[in-house]
C-alpha cells in the first residue's frame, strides 16, 4: 500500500515536473549587457593545471562609499583591485587600485578580521594564503604577521568564516585541494582542511586545527543547517581526485573540537564533483536548501522530511524544482556541463529566489561541453526554476569559474561579475526587463545593511527575515561558499509587487529585533539596538 502511494506520488511528481518544463516562464527576464572592458575591467584568470580550478572574486566596500569594489584572483597573473566609480543607475565604471603584488591567487573573501572600520581580505593561493589588512581608502597591506596567520603552503580553494558564540574574532576555515607533494599526486592525495580559532582577546589566528580527512575540497561554508543558531562547516569535495571520500559536514560542537557528521548522525554519503555551495531557504522553514555544483548535474538538497529527529539527512530536489542544469541549454551539445560558482539571489526582483551557476569546461575535457554557458535559473510562483540564461544575455562562450552577484550601480537590480578561465572577466550590467521602449524596471526591491556594533560589525551569521504578505524571505549573512568567491555589503531582496515590507533581524548572538517597517525601493541600514531603520541614498539619487 505504501509502495503504491510512493509510486503514485512519483508519477504525480513526474507529471508535475513535465508540466512545469512545458510551462513558459511568464515573469520578467532581466536583460544583461556585458561591459567589462567599457567599465574598465580587463582581467584574465590564467595558469596551468593548478589554475584549472579557482578563479574567484571578492566584492566589498573598501572606501566607505557603500558601492561594491572588487578584488579579482588572477592565477598566474597578478590579482587586481578595482574601485567602483559607477554612477547611480548609470554605466558601470571601475578604476584599478593599488594592492600588494600577489600572484598564484585562486580566490578571495572579504572579512573584517579585527572588527575595525575597514574590511580586510583573505587571498587564497597556491601556496601561502595571505591576509590583506584594510587601511581605509582602498589601501591594503599584507598582514599575516600582524594577524599571526600561518598561510600554509597548500593549494587552497575554499574559505569560510564565522563568529562563534561569545567570540570577539572570527573562526576561519580554509578548504584545501590536492596535496601536490604527496606520492601519487594528484590521485587520492587530498590535503587536509584547516580550522583556525582566534585567541580570545586578540585578532590572533595562530592556532590551527587540521580537519582530517580532506577530500579535495573546492568550497566550504559555515552554515546553520538546522536553524538552531549554531554554525557547522559544510565542505563540498571533488570526486575526481579523492578516493573513498564524500561530501562532508563538520560539527563545531558549540566551540568544542570539530567532529565529522557520519552515517550514525544521519549524514548520507554523497559523491560528486563538488565545486561550489550556495544556500537559501526555498521552503520557508528557516532551514536552508543547498545548491551544490558538479559536473553533469547540480544537487539541490533539502532536509528530508522523513529523517529521524534533528538529523542532517538530505533529499535531492533538483529534478523536482528544475535545477539539475546537467547539460548546456543552448549550443547543441548533448553532453554534461561543468558547474562552478553557485549563487542564490533574486535577479528579477520578483520576490522568488533564482539560481546562478557559473559553467565552463575544466580545460578541454572531451566528455564535457566545450560551449557551456552560465545558468540563470529564475524561480517562479510555483517554486519551479526556469532556465533563462540565453534570454538574459549571459550565455557567452567563456569558461566561468567564480562570480559576484551584487548591485554595482545602486539601481536596485543585481549585476553580475564572472571570472573566467583564460578569458576576460565578464561584467554584466542588469538593465531591467526589455520593453518596447528599451528597458524598464522589474519588481520592487529592498537592500539591507546591518551594523552589529563593535564585535563582528558586518553581522556575519545574522539572519535577515523579510515579510511581504504571506511570503517570508530569509537570508543569512555569510562569508564562504560559492566557488572561491565571497561578498559582503548590502543584502538584496526582490519584493515583487509589494510596496513595503517588515524586516526582522536575528543578530549573530541570537538576539532578535522587533519587526521594522520599511518602504520598497530603498537602501536600509539597520543598527543593532536601534529600532528605527535608517535610509541610505547613493550619490546622485539622494
Amino acid at each position, binding site marked *: 500500500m505504501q509502495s503504491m502511494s510512493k509510486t503514485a506520488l512519483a508519477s504525480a511528481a513526474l507529471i508535475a515536473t513535465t508540466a512545469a518544463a512545458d*510551462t513558459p516562464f*511568464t*515573469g*520578467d527576464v532581466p536583460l544583461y549587457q556585458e561591459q567589462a572592458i567599457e567599465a574598465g575591467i580587463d582581467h584574465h584568470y590564467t595558469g596551468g593545471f593548478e589554475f584549472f580550478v579557482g578563479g574567484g572574486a571578492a566584492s566589498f566596500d573598501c572606501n*566607505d562609499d*557603500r558601492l561594491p569594489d572588487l578584488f579579482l584572483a588572477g592565477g598566474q597573473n597578478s590579482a587586481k583591485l578595482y574601485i567602483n566609480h559607477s554612477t547611480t543607475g548609470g554605466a558601470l565604471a571601475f578604476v584599478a587600485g593599488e594592492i600588494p603584488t600577489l600572484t598564484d591567487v585562486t580566490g578571495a573573501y572579504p572579512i573584517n578580521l579585527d572588527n575595525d572600520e575597514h574590511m580586510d581580505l583573505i587571498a587564497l593561493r597556491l601556496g601561502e594564503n595571505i591576509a590583506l589588512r584594510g587601511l581605509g581608502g582602498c589601501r591594503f597591506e599584507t598582514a599575516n604577521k600582524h594577524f599571526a596567520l600561518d598561510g600554509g603552503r597548500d593549494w587552497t580553494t575554499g574559505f569560510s568564516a564565522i563568529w562563534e558564540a561569545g567570540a570577539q574574532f572570527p573562526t576561519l576555515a580554509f578548504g584545501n585541494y590536492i596535496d601536490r607533494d604527496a606520492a601519487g599526486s594528484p590521485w587520492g592525495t587530498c590535503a587536509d582542511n584547516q580550522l583556525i580559532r582566534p585567541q580570545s582577546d586578540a585578532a590572533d589566528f595562530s592556532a590551527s586545527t587540521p580537519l582530517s580527512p580532506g577530500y579535495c575540497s573546492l568550497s566550504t561554508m559555515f552554515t546553520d543547517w538546522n536553524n538552531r543558531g549554531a554554525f557547522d562547516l559544510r565542505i563540498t569535495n571533488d570526486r575526481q581526485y579523492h578516493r573513498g571520500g564524500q561530501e562532508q559536514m563538520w560539527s563545531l560542537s558549540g566551540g568544542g573540537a570539530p567532529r565529522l557528521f557520519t552515517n550514525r548522525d544521519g549524514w548520507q554519503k554523497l559523491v560528486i564533483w563538488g565545486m561550489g555551495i550556495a544556500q537559501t531557504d526555498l521552503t520557508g522553514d528557516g532551514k536552508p536548501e543547498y545548491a551544490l555544483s558538479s559536473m553533469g548535474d547540480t544537487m539541490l538538497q533539502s532536509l528530508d522530511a522523513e529523517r529521524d529527529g534533528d538529523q542532517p539527512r538530505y533529499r535531492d530536489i533538483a529534478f523536482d524544482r528544475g535545477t539539475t542544469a546537467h547539460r548546456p541549454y543552448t549550443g547543441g551539445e548533448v553532453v554534461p556541463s561543468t558547474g562552478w560558482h553557485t549563487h542564490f539571489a533574486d535577479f528579477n*526582483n*520578483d520576490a522568488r529566489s533564482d539560481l546562478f551557476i557559473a559553467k565552463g569546461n575544466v580545460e578541454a575535457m572531451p566528455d564535457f561541453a566545450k560551449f557551456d554557458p552560465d545558468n540563470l535559473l529564475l524561480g*517562479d*510562483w*510555483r517554486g519551479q526554476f526556469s532556465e533563462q540564461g540565453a534570454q538574459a544575455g549571459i550565455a557567452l562562450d567563456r569558461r566561468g569559474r567564480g562570480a559576484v552577484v551584487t548591485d554595482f550601480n545602486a539601481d536596485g537590480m543585481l549585476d553580475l561579475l564572472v571570472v573566467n578561465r583564460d578569458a576576460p572577466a565578464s561584467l554584466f550590467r542588469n538593465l531591467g526587463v526589455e*520593453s*518596447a*521602449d528599451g528597458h*524598464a*524596471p*522589474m*519588481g*520592487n526591491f529592498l537592500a539591507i545593511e546591518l551594523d552589529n556594533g563593535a564585535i563582528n560589525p558586518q553581522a556575519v551569521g545574522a539572519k535577515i527575515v523579510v515579510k*511581504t*504578505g*504571506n511570503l517570508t524571505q530569509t537570508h543569512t549573512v555569510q562569508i564562504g561558499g560559492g566557488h572561491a568567491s565571497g561578498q559582503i555589503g548590502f543584502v538584496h531582496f526582490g*519584493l*515583487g*509587487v*509589494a*510596496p*513595503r515590507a517588515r524586516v526582522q533581524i536575528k543578530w549573530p548572538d541570537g538576539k532578535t529585533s522587533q519587526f521594522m*517597517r*520599511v*518602504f*520598497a*525601493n*530603498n537602501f536600509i*541600514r539597520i543598527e543593532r539596538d536601534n529600532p*528605527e*531603520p*535608517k*535610509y*541610505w*541614498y*547613493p*550619490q546622485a539619487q*539622494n
Partner: protein
Amino acid sequence: MRLVAAALLAALTPIVGWAEDTPWAEKTHALGVFDSPPAGLQSGDQLDRLLDLGEALFAAPFTTLDGAGRPRATQAILPTKTKRPLRSAFARTSGPDANSCASCHNQPVLGGAGDFTMNVFVSEGFNNHDFDTTDPEFSNERGTNHLFGAGLIELLAREISFDLIELRRDALSQARASNAPIVTTLTSKGISFGTLTAHPSGIVDLGDISGVDADLVVRPFTQKGVVESLRQFSINAMNHHHGMQASERFGARWTGEADFDEDGINDELSGGDISALVAWQATLPAPRIWAPDSPQWQSAAAKGQTNFTAFGCATCHKMALPLNSMIFTDPSPFDGAGTLRASETADPMQIDLAQLPWAQNLVRNAQGQVMVPLFGDLKRHKMTDAEVATLGNELFSQRFVGRDTFMTAELWGVGSTAPYGHRNDLTTLDEIIRAHGGDARASRDAYIAASKSNQQEIIAYLKTLRISEVD
C-alpha cells in the same frame, strides 16, 4: 452627469472587438475597449471618450461573465491565494462586497461618498481573509469617501513629495560637501513634516519626521493616507470589492497566471480599463464653497469662516493649498511594481485639468498657482488622547500607520456627505468636531468652549462646502 449606458454602446461599437456579442449580453461592454493605456496629452474628443468609458466602468454592475468574484484570491493588495474556496461569492464583510463602484460612491451623486450602510471592512487580507464578522478584531470598518477633486489631491501630493525629496537631496549634497551632518526642516506648501538629519555618508536619520512616510512620499488616499495614486487605489479596490483583477498586478507577469482568482476569466481588467477609471476619477469636479440664498446663512457662514481659523481648525484643515501644474499624468511618478509605472510607458497619459469647465472656478494666487480649496494638509495626525478617544476605535494599524493616526480629512464636499468620521458613525458635524482628540484637541476644545452661536456658525460654514453638482 454623464449618461452613458446606451449611448456608449452605440458610440463604441466600431472600435471594439465585441461586435459579435449581443447588446443584451450580461456583461460590461466597456471592458477592454482600450487594451493599453492611452498615450500623451488627451485632446477634447479623446478625453470625452475616455471619460465616457471610465464612467461606464465606474457605474457598471460587474458580472461573472466580466470576471466578478475571486473564489481563490483574497482581498489583499498583493496577489494572495485563499487557503480554500470562498464560502460565498459575496460577503459584506470580507468581500467581494459590491457589484459596482457606484453602489457605494453615490452620495450625493456618482463618485460621491457613502452612507453607513456603504461601510467597508478593511483588512490586510493575509490572515483570516474570509472573516464573517464586523468585530474589529478582524477588520477596520471604514466609511466610503467621495472622490470629487481627486485629481487635484493627487497632484498636490505629488508636488509635496517632490519638494520633500528635493529637500532631502539638498541636505545630503550639503552634508557630503561639508562633511558634516545637516538638519533640514521638511516644509512644503506651508506644511511642516518635521526634520531629517542627513549625514556625509549618505545615511539619513528619519526619527523626527512627522505625518509622512519614511520615503517622504505623500500618500493622499484612504482615511489612513496609505495609497499614493488613483491608479493604485483603483486596482486595490477592484480586487477587494468586486473580484475584478487588473492584469498589471494579478496577471501572468507577477503571478504566472492569467486567471489568478480562478473564476474562469483571464485578464479581467486591462491597462486601458484602469486608465479610464483613473481619468474619470481624476477629472471629477472640485467641490466648492456654495453661496446659500439665505442672508442669515451667509452671515453665519462668514462668521464661521473666521472662527474656523480662530479655533485652529485651519491649522490642519488648510483652506487651500497652491498647485503649480494642472497637468494630471498617469501613471503616477511614485507608483511601484504591480501598478503601471511611468518608466513602463513611453508616453504617459496627460490630462490638462485646467481645460475642464469646473476648473475655471478655481482661484489663482499672485504667482499663478491654482489654490486648491481642499480644507486639508495631506498629512497624518494622531486623533485620539486619553480623554477624547472616539476615533480610537480600531484595533489594527494599517500599512505601518498606527491605529490612532489618520490623514486629515479634506473637508471640501463635507456639506454633501454626511455622516462623518472614518467609520461614518457620527451623524452630525458637531459630533465629529467633538470627537477630535490628540493633535486636534486644542481646536476641539476651543469649539466646545465657544458660544452656541459660534459653534453654529462653524456648522453653517462647513455646510457650504459642497460637491458642485448638487447645485
